[in-house]
């Protein structure tokens, strides 16, 4: 037995090395660069730079748009998952079809295709003008970016909610109905509270990619809307200021850590509930 344990320890070595070299050290580097200046001296300026109006506006914009996108995802996904769970014929394969198959079309292309739908001479506006209406300004707006976020991250919301709803014991729902609860009461007092962990997990999975994206905004924003992700990407790829880019990344890390804490706490309360 002792021998097996030792073998097991050796088997883990490559991964421990890997995790240290490619997960831990790179993060330490972001912290290091974020807290030093060009000459390697300690400074807090790169993190404090978030207060610069251009950066704080970009952060605010990212928070606002990703918040709205998360809410829209939730509002779209929840009824969908309820319908899917109710229609008990739905097999897992149907859900896979719905959610996983689109991932096999490159996500840049998928997002880019929205340009053809939204632009001035695009599908929607061509339709509007053909029936005699004024064309709308759709592309390169906040709305277009929210749409892009919802489109890309909706599956992250659907999956956990579906699992949570599917796990609810049907007898609990039937019991509520037998005890005289209306449909609405059953939904708000029984189903929704039971699915809450899935909802929160969905929210945390949508919010971070939406908050930190630079791709959606650059494909559907026409360069007119700067999100914090764009600022960071450009500090590295255009301005050649790794220190500032890292400093702003540290600000993003704060949000990511908050997000992790929220999801860990809900998982824990879920475990308590289970036990």
């Amino acid at each position, binding site marked *: 037995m002792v021998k097996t344990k030792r073998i097991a320890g050796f088997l*883990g070595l490559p991964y421990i090395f890997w995790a240290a070299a490619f*997960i831990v050290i790179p993060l330490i580097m972001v912290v290091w660069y974020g807290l030093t200046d060009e000459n390697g001296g300690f400074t807090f300026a790169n993190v404090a730079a978030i207060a610069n109006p251009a950066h704080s506006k970009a952060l605010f914009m990212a928070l606002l748009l990703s918040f709205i996108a998360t809410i829209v995802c939730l509002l779209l996904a929840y009824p969908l998952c309820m319908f899917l769970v109710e229609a008990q014929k739905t097999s897992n394969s149907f859900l896979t079809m719905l959610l996983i198959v689109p*991932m096999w079309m*490159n996500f840049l292309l998928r997002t880019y295709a929205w340009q053809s739908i939204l632009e001035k001479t695009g599908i929607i506006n061509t339709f509007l003008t053909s029936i005699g209406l004024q064309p709308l300004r759709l592309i390169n707006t906040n709305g277009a970016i929210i749409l892009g976020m919802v489109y890309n991250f909706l599956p992250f919301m659907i999956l956990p909610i579906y699992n949570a709803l599917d796990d609810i014991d049907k007898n609990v729902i039937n019991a509520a109905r037998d005890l005289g609860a209306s449909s609405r009461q059953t939904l708000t007092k029984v189903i929704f509270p039971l699915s809450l962990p899935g909802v929160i997990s969905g929210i945390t999975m949508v919010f*971070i990619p939406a908050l930190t994206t630079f791709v959606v905004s650059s494909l559907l924003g026409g360069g007119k809307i700067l999100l914090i992700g764009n600022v960071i990407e450009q500090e590295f790829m255009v301005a050649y200021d790794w220190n500032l880019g890292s400093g702003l990344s540290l600000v993003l890390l704060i949000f990511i850590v908050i997000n992790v804490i929220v999801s860990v706490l809900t998982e824990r309360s879920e475990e308590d509930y289970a036990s």
Partner: protein
Amino acid sequence: MKIRYKGIKRVYIGLIFIFMYAPIALLIIQSFNKSKSRGRWGGFTFEWYGSLFTDASIIEAFTNTILLALLSSVISVILGTMACICISKMKKKARNIMMGITNIPMLNADIVTGVSFMLLFLTLRIQFGFGTILLAHITFNIPYVILSVMPSYRDLNPHIYEAALDLGASPVYAFIKTVLPEIMPAILSGGLMAFTMSIDDFIITHFTAGAGVHTLSTKIYSEVKLGIKPEMYALSAMIFITVLILLILVNRVQGSARKEDA
């Protein structure tokens, strides 16, 4: 009332479907468009499906993408499975630390992961290229493998393995005969997940790619600005349709197998 509710349900699911698939349909239609410009329909053609195979840069990006996905998922499956065996034998605190670290790439924002890799390779003077992308892909793939294999490995009955050892099997032989078959489904699903993640990644590749090395994602990103080549639509449509058909076939086979079981 009931019928109307059912109708609403159908319409709603249908609308979400349209929302998810309309852009994809558009891209597939575009691949048959004779006109190179996105906005105009210039007639139906199969031309791009032919010229695709003579476009060296697209073919190269495609092979890079597939090679990366294959290598990174195989390596991460091996490293990840080995790690599971080790981590599950650790004391609770060490295990929690390891699992915490393992979770980082999944919970972290892609842009921060990408940037951290870029800084690592820059400071260590590692030349950017296929190798750096591969390192990055393996790193963000391993967690998917570990999180898939870990529960299945911990559910194993350890006595079977020990019994095999007692009966004189070598540790490796005992592992292959008793443990591996049990955790194989988890390994496969973790590997498939890793493969998909690697294919779909853009952001991390964007920060770790070097001169002249492109995956389909980075190629598309640079083409978006210049106008996407119709061959790119053709290739993407082909990949998409292939996967769709494969999935339907797998479903059919599983479906009929289930029926026979019943």
